[in-house]
């Protein structure tokens, strides 16, 4: 009897450990089956998936990741794919995912700032803003090269253009309202479609 049940108990134990190990939540999903594996859309290493417009997660600030997951769950960042996933993740799973993702390096990007000269529309918005509409230079908050600043201002460089444009449109349309003090909302509402496309392509192209 003891010998017969031993291996079964052992299998259960292994499963429980798997559900909490960060790499496995990322690549196999959470304990709740609705928390599907991050890797299926965000890439095996969290590098994102350009074709689908799924953002890079590896190297993002931990607090930023946690806040976005909470906001997906609450609807402050409306997203039909992420809402059920974020809602199904436990707090422990979110903490371990954030710790695992933030520990990875974000790709090196040249720190191009306001001092650089500009030609195209996208880089003009990024490095000069459009102050006639109270739009600051993107790099004024997201840092030179769009590498991100601290826990609140995420990196933009190297994210898929489709993803960046979708966020600006979400702020414009009010489906993403989780930015502090409407800092991005008022910018999104002031940008034209051409500007959104150009500035998204600019930051997407900043990768080595």
């Amino acid at each position: 009897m003891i010998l017969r049940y031993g291996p079964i108990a052992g299998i259960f134990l292994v499963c429980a450990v798997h559900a909490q190990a960060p790499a496995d939540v990322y690549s196999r999903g959470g304990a709740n089956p609705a928390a599907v594996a991050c890797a299926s859309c965000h890439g095996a290493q969290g590098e994102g998936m350009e074709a689908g417009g799924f953002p890079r997660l590896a190297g993002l600030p931990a607090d930023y990741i946690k806040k976005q997951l909470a906001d997906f769950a609450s609807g402050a960042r409306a997203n039909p794919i992420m809402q059920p996933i974020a809602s199904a993740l436990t707090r422990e799973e979110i903490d371990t995912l954030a710790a695992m993702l933030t520990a990875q390096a974000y790709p090196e990007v040249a720190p191009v700032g306001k001092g650089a000269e500009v030609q195209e529309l996208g880089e003009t918005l990024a490095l000069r803003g459009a102050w006639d509409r109270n739009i600051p230079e993107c790099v004024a908050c997201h840092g030179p090269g769009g590498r991100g600043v601290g826990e609140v201002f995420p990196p933009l460089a190297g994210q898929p253009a489709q993803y960046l444009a979708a966020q600006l449109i979400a702020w414009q349309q009010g489906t993403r309202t989780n930015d502090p003090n409407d800092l991005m909302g008022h910018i999104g509402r002031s940008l034209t479609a051409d500007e959104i496309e150009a500035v998204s392509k600019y930051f997407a192209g900043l990768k080595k």
Partner: protein
Amino acid sequence: MKISCTAVLLSAFGFASFAAQGAEIAEDQSQILTRPDSPASGRYFRPPLEREIPDNAFGKLVQEGRAIFVDTKNRAPEYVGNGLSCGNCHLEQGRRANSAPLWAAYTMYPAYRKKNDRVNSYTERLQGCFQFSMNGKAPEAESRVIAALTAYSYWLAMGAPTGQELPGRAYPEVPPPAGGFDLAKGERIYADQCAICHGADGEGQKAGENYVFPPLWGADSFNWGAGMHRINTAAAFIKENMPLGKGGTLSDEDAWHVAAFMNSHERPQDPRLIDGSVEKTRDKYHANDGVNLYGMVVNGRMLGQGVE
């Protein structure tokens, strides 16, 4: 958080003398008071566009000046003693009306400034920025940095009338709260509106080695001699320009409260310090310089000690 009785009295006195100076202030370019009812944006002078910078030796110097202006710490490191850039206080690369634009400053020099009690050239005015706002060292008059910043200022002002106070100059004056400023209110406004960028303790935020969000007090900020140490000047700047991209959203009162909170913290010493004495320095340079807390006792500590 309360100011001591002495500080309140001195502060009230300071404000009275500040208000009384209004009529004669045009004589003195140390502190420029602009009326709050400034004209509509269509009436502001429009500086040339960046793409119009000529492709010649002059244009190269203009472009170099522009780059120094927005990236001062990296491009003029020998003259900068803190984490700031010129462009932190003069938004949109010194182009923006009501954000102390260079095109409105350049055309007003040479000018008398009570700050140093003499007629200053534009070069001397720029040197003053480095000494106080940048807490650094004045670039030599013949230096490349001065040449470039002057070329950039001149280019921005091309076509503007000389010797006329242009609309949009400096920061529009903001009337102080009827009951005086309140540091506790300022602290709350700071936490709600400012800390996300400038940090919980005014320390700013960096990306790599470089500050992206400027430190507002402490060793890497402007010193006690900078114009921004005046609460009235800081309130005017904040009301018009902060939070970045959302200028004009704070009430006049809140702009004053939060400006007072910012300027109730320690920062690098006024380089004009007399005999090591904060009191003497206050009497000579701060007692009649708008509303400021240099030499005042706040939370039981006298401000103006400086930080290294």
